[in-house]
């Protein structure tokens, strides 16, 4: 084993597994290829064939470069797991953007990369131009990326692509999914996909039915049902039309979508526990408690705040505009049924402030959602209460504090510290984004709103994210979406690995 470690460098291991994941993405491109064939979209078909070829070549090259991994049966260590997860997401962004760029709907390759990162991280901000005339193949691709990104690229690879099981847990954790539903990580990944596929079938059928009832043609209703389900379940925010969810103009459609995105923002561990018969988890779990309390308070505050303005004259329009958008922000979905400028012109600073807070809080850990996560908010909140209780009770009274997440866990300082560190990282990322927006001349409220939206992987926009925004902001928003989705640690590992590599390279040349 020691010999094999000496022979196999970390870069070989990273290269080898990343190559395999490229193959996975190439296989996925077969789906839009088949769809383009069915709908006779020859231009889109050609785009995807070219993209697939490039992806396969990249995969082969990476596997070839890392072939020593296979020859020596090298084992993945934690540092590899984190670095591979972070690197795969960046490489996927570049490769998956090829069909976007070839379609001619992106102003530049950077815009195409922005949209792919937005899709993979389930953010949902769009820079693609003339969205209403996108090919069906490319629309399927966009929504597939959102769906896959929500479950996790590595999770997908563990289920369908790799036979490798040793070290897979390290890859899985690297993608910010750290819950073990069953002892085997491959089994856990399969359960995540099983839950999503069952909901995909049920949700698409319901939306197909509602879509047909509101006047969409059967094939169009089915395609729209697929698009909107994947977007809502993955808490993504993409829609096939520029008008987003407003295109459907239906209370029923919006209500079904709301149910789907709330369920999508729940922890896969929670779904599994409920499906295993632990029904009380829905109300006992710290994450659902945190979500229901914060989302309820946010809805109440915005409803109360806007009811004074008479902006929405009746309960139905108030419910549709306010509750939908607040829940969409809180679950980090980003589907919006008001125009971007309406937030700033009609909702005012009070509404925007509440939206920023809920966007940053986000959904549940190990779900498709972004943000700090309800689990961390709940832990920190309980930690504060624990400290207050400790101060107020006798020093001789030694009590073990707990929180409930699937099972009871001890609430110790280590857990509170870990949660606080991630929350601080999110706030720093959000702060820098806001500062950048203000630097480029956007109003503070707008810059903060958009920054919270990208940091929390939400996708609501106040009008800043357009193809004409400064390149530096596009780059920063890509980084914010990426870091927000991977929850920092993997990205820090990749940065550390890259800096270490550069240092070694420099010292070798200087010696």
């Amino acid at each position, binding site marked *: 084993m020691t010999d094999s470690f000496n022979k196999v460098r970390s870069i070989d291991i990273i290269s080898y597994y990343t190559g395999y994941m490229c193959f996975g993405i190439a296989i996925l491109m077969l789906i839009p290829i088949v769809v383009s064939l069915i709908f006779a979209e020859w231009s889109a078909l050609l785009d995807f064939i070219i993209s697939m070829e490039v992806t396969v070549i990249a995969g082969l090259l990476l596997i070839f470069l890392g072939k020593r991994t296979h020859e020596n049966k090298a084992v993945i260590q934690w540092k590899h797991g984190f670095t591979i997860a972070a690197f795969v997401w960046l490489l996927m962004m570049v490769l998956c953007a090829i069909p976007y760029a070839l379609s001619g709907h992106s102003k530049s390759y950077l815009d195409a990369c922005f949209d792919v990162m937005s899709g993979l991280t389930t953010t949902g901000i769009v820079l693609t131009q003339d969205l209403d005339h996108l090919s069906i193949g490319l629309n399927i691709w966009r929504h597939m990326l959102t769906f896959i990104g929500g479950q996790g690229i590595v999770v997908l690879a563990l289920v369908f692509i790799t036979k490798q099981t040793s070290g897979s847990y390290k890859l899985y954790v690297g993608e910010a999914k750290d819950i073990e539903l069953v002892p085997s990580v491959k089994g856990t990944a399969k359960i995540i996909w099983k839950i999503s596929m069952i909901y995909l079938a049920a949700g698409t059928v319901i939306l197909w039915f509602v879509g047909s009832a509101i006047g969409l043609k059967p094939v169009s209703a089915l395609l729209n049902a697929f698009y909107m389900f994947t977007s809502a379940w993955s808490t993504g925010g993409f829609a096939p039309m520029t008008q987003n969810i407003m295109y459907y103009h239906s209370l029923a459609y919006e209500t079904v979508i709301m149910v789907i995105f709330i369920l999508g923002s729940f922890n896969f561990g929670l779904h599994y526990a*409920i499906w*295993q*018969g632990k029904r009380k988890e*829905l109300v006992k779990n710290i994450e659902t408690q945190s979500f229901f309390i914060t989302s309820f308070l946010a*809805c*109440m505050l915005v*409803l109360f705040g806007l009811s004074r303005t008479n902006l929405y004259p009746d309960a139905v329009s108030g*419910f549709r505009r*306010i509750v939908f958008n607040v829940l969409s922000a809180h679950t980090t979905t980003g589907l919006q049924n008001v125009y971007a400028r309406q937030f700033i012109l009609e909702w005012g600073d009070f509404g925007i402030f509440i939206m920023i807070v809920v966007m940053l809080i986000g959904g549940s850990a190990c779900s498709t959602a972004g943000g700090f996560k309800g689990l961390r908010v709940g832990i920190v909140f309980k930690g504060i209460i624990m400290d207050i209780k400790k101060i107020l009770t006798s020093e001789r009274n030694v009590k073990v504090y707990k929180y409930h997440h699937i099972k009871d866990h001890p609430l110790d300082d280590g857990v509170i510290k870990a949660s606080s560190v991630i929350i601080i990282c999110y706030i720093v990322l959000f702060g820098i984004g806001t500062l950048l927006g203000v630097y480029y001349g956007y109003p503070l409220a707008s810059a903060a709103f958009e920054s919270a939206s990208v940091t929390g992987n939400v996708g609501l926009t106040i009008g800043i994210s357009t193809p004409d925004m400064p390149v530096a902001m596009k780059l920063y928003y890509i980084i914010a979406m990426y870091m927000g989705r991977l929850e920092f640690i993997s990205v820090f590992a990749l940065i550390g690995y890259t800096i270490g590599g550069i240092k070694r390279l420099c010292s070798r040349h200087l010696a």
Partner: protein
Amino acid sequence: MKQVVNEFTGLMVELVGTSLYIVLLFFIAMLLMR
């Protein structure tokens, strides 16, 4: 079979629970937006 029933019931619990929450928010919106 028992597993399938459990999973189906779990799915229904989640769908009904979430729908009830949305209905609750709708009623509160009705009260506040009168």
